C-alpha cells in the first residue's frame, strides 16, 4: 500500500492502483472462464467495471482496518489485500481456499487483512459494519471500518438503521455506495424515490460526497481524505461512487433487459482504460502498462492452474468449525445424522 511513498510520487501511486485493478479484472475474467468450464459452482458476481471504487477505497486503508463487503466481493477482497490465489481456490472449492472452501464466491473473507467477509444477504454488512466500528471504539483502537453497499441495497431498511446508528454513536466508519445503475435486472432508479443515496445519507446528518467511481484518481484522492477524517474522529462519512456494471448481474446473465448499445457505450468509460490513459499522460509508456496488465493476467492464470491442481477438501472437514457446543454428528453407515 506504500501510502507515503505513493503520495510523494503520484503517478507511481496511481500505477500501483492500476496494478491492483488489473489483478481484479484478470481475476474476474478468468473466474468467468473457469465458471463456464464447470470449475466453479453456484454463481459469481463480477466486479468488472467497478474496480476503481474498491481499489481506491481499500488501498487507502490499513490491514488493521476492517471492510465488510457484499455479494460482489472479489474486488474488495483483492484490494484489501486478500490473496487472489487463495480466493481462486475458494471459488473452485479447493484446499487452501480463503474460507477453507466452505464459502465459495459469495463468502470470501480474509480476517488476517481485515476483510470481514463478503455476504450473500443484502445490507447485512451494514449493520455488522457499525457493530465492528463499535468494537473498535470499545477497544480504543484507531482503526476504521469501510462498508460497501450497492445502489439497489439502499432500499433495504437496515441501510437507514445503520446510517442513523453510525451517527448516534459517532463511529469510525465509511459507507461506500457503489452505484452501478442496476440491482440485478432492475434499473435501480425505477424503484428508488427522490434524489438518491447522497440525499438520503445527508438526511441523517451524515456528511456525504459523490465521486465518479470510474476515475481511480478521483476516488483515491477523495477516499484518502475521507478515511483520514474518519480515522481522526470525524465521525462517519458517506461516499457515493457512480459506476456501471458492464457485465451481467451474475456471470450467466444474458443482459436481455438492457437497451441495445447500452453496455458497449459504458465499456468506453470503464476504469482500467481511463486509468491507463491517465498514466500515459503522466509519464508511463504503453509498454510499462502492458507489462503490468500482462503480469496481472499471468498471476491469475497461474492462480487458476494452481487452484485446478489443488485437491478438494476432505469430506470430513464438513463437520469442522460449526460450533463448540453441540457440534453436528457425522453420518453413520446406517444413514443417521443429527
Amino acid at each position, binding site marked *: 500500500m506504500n501510502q507515503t511513498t505513493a503520495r510523494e510520487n503520484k503517478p507511481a501511486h496511481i500505477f500501483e492502483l492500476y496494478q491492483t485493478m488489473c489483478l481484479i479484472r484478470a481475476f474476474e475474467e478468468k473466474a468467468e472462464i473457469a465458471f463456464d468450464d464447470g470449475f466453479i459452482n453456484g*454463481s459469481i458476481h463480477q466486479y468488472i467495471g467497478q474496480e476503481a471504487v474498491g481499489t481506491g477505497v481499500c488501498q487507502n486503508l490499513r490491514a488493521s482496518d476492517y471492510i465488510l463487503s457484499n455479494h460482489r466481493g472479489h474486488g474488495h477482497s483483492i484490494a484489501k489485500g486478500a490473496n487472489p490465489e487463495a480466493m481462486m481456490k475458494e471459488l473452485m472449492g479447493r484446499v487452501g481456499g480463503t474460507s477453507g472452501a466452505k464459502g*465459495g464466491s459469495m463468502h470470501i473473507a480474509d480476517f488476517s487483512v481485515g476483510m470481514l467477509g463478503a455476504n*450473500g444477504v443484502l445490507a447485512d454488512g451494514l449493520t455488522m459494519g457499525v457493530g465492528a466500528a463499535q468494537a473498535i471504539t470499545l477497544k480504543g483502537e484507531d482503526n476504521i471500518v469501510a462498508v460497501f453497499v450497492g445502489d439497489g441495497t439502499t*432500499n433495504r431498511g437496515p441501510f437507514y438503521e445503520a446510517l442513523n446508528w453510525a451517527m448516534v454513536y459517532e463511529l469510525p466508519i465509511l459507507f461506500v455506495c457503489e452505484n452501478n445503475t442496476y*440491482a440485478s435486472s432492475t434499473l435501480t432508479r425505477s424503484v428508488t424515490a427522490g434524489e438518491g443515496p447522497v440525499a438520503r445519507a445527508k438526511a441523517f446528518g451524515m456528511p456525504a460526497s459523490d465521486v465518479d467511481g470510474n476515475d481511480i484518481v478521483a476516488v483515491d484522492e477523495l477516499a484518502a481524505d475521507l478515511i483520514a477524517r474518519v480515522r481522526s474522529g470525524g465521525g462517519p462519512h458517506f461516499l457515493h461512487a457512480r459506476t456501471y456494471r458492464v457485465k451481467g448481474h451474475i456471470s450467466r446473465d444474458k443482459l436481455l433487459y438492457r437497451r441495445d448499445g447500452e453496455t458497449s457505450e459504458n465499456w468506453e468509460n470503464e476504469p482500467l482504460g481511463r486509468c491507463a490513459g491517465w498514466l500515459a499522460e503522466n509519464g508511463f509508456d504503453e509498454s510499462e502498462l502492458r507489462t503490468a496488465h500482462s503480469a496481472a493476467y499471468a498471476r491469475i492464470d497461474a492462480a487458476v492452474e494452481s487452484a485446478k491442481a489443488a485437491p478438494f477438501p476432505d469430506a470430513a472437514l*464438513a*463437520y469442522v468449525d460449526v460450533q463448540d457446543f453441540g457440534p*453436528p454428528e457425522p453420518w453413520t453407515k*446406517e444413514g443417521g445424522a443429527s
Partner: protein
Amino acid sequence: MTEMTFADAVREGLAEEMRRDPLVWALGEDLSTAHGGTSANQYLGLIDEFGPKRIVNTPISENTIMGAAVGAAVAGTRPVADLRMADFGMCAVDELVNQAAKIRYMFGGQARVPLVVRQAIGMRKGGAAQHSQSTEAWYVHTPGLVVVAPGTPADGRGLLKSAIRADDPVVYMEHKDLWVSKGDVPDDEGLVPIGVAKTLRQGTDLTIVSWSKMAQLSNDAAEALAKDGASVEVIDLRTLWPWDKAAVYASIKKTGRLLVAQEAVQVGGFAAEIMADVTENCAGDLKTHARRIGAPRMPVPYAEPMENEYRVTTERVIAKARETLDA
C-alpha cells in the same frame, strides 16, 4: 396433459389465476424483468399481459414486500409475494409471523389474509450457507399459516392455484432444483387440494413420507429397494400444514413401518413432528419405531465433497430404509 417444467407450470398457474380474478397480483424483486434470464423465470412475460400494477417489480425491501402483501390482502386483494428464497425470507419473518399469521385471529375474525408468499427452499449445487436453507419447520410451527411444498410441475401449478384461492396466508415453498424439472401437467384447471397427500408408489413393507424434492429421491430409493424385493410405499405430503394424517396413518396401518425423509437439517425439522405425531397416534400399528433422515446440524458447505457429505442422498435414504425394514 402437457409436459412442462416446474417453473413454466407455476407461471401458467399464476397467469390463469390472474386472468380469473383481477384482484390477484404479484410482487417481488425483478419480477417484470424476470431476473434478467438468470433465474427460473417464473414470471417471464407476465408483465406484458398484466402490466406493472399487477406484476410489481419492487425495490429490494423484503420487509415491505411481505408487509405490503399483508396490507393488500386485508384490504381485499390477493397478493402473491415472492421473497425468492427462504434465506431472504428470514428478512421478513416478522411481517409473516407476527402479522399475516395472526391478523385474522387477533382481530377476532374481522379480516382474512388471503396471500401467498413464495420462498424457495433447498440446496442448489454450490449454493452454500445462505442460499440453500429449508425452513419449512418454522412455519409449520407457526399458527395461522398454511405451508405447501410441491414436488412436481403439476402439483406446483395446482397448489399455487389453490393457495391463491385460499383465504389463509400460505407459505409456498418450491425447491430451486425443481424449477427446471419436467412433468406432465393437466390441461384442465388442475387444482390440487391443500392438505391432501399423494401416494407416489404403493407398497406393503415400509412407508416413506417425504415432500418437495426429497419425495422424488424417496421414490428412487423405493425403486432401488424393490429390486431387493422390498415393497415400499412413498407418500408425497405436498402440504406440510395441514399434513395429511389420514393418508399417513392408513399407510402405516398397512406397512407397519415408517421412515420420514427430509432435506432440511434433521434436528428440529418437520420430520420430528411427524415422528412425534405418529409415535403418539400409530403406536399400535408400528412394527418398529418410526425413523427419520435429514441433514446434519450444520450450515451448508460450498465445496463439492463437503456438500455431498452434507446431502441427504438417495443412497442414504436407501440405507435408512433398509435399517427400518430390517428392524
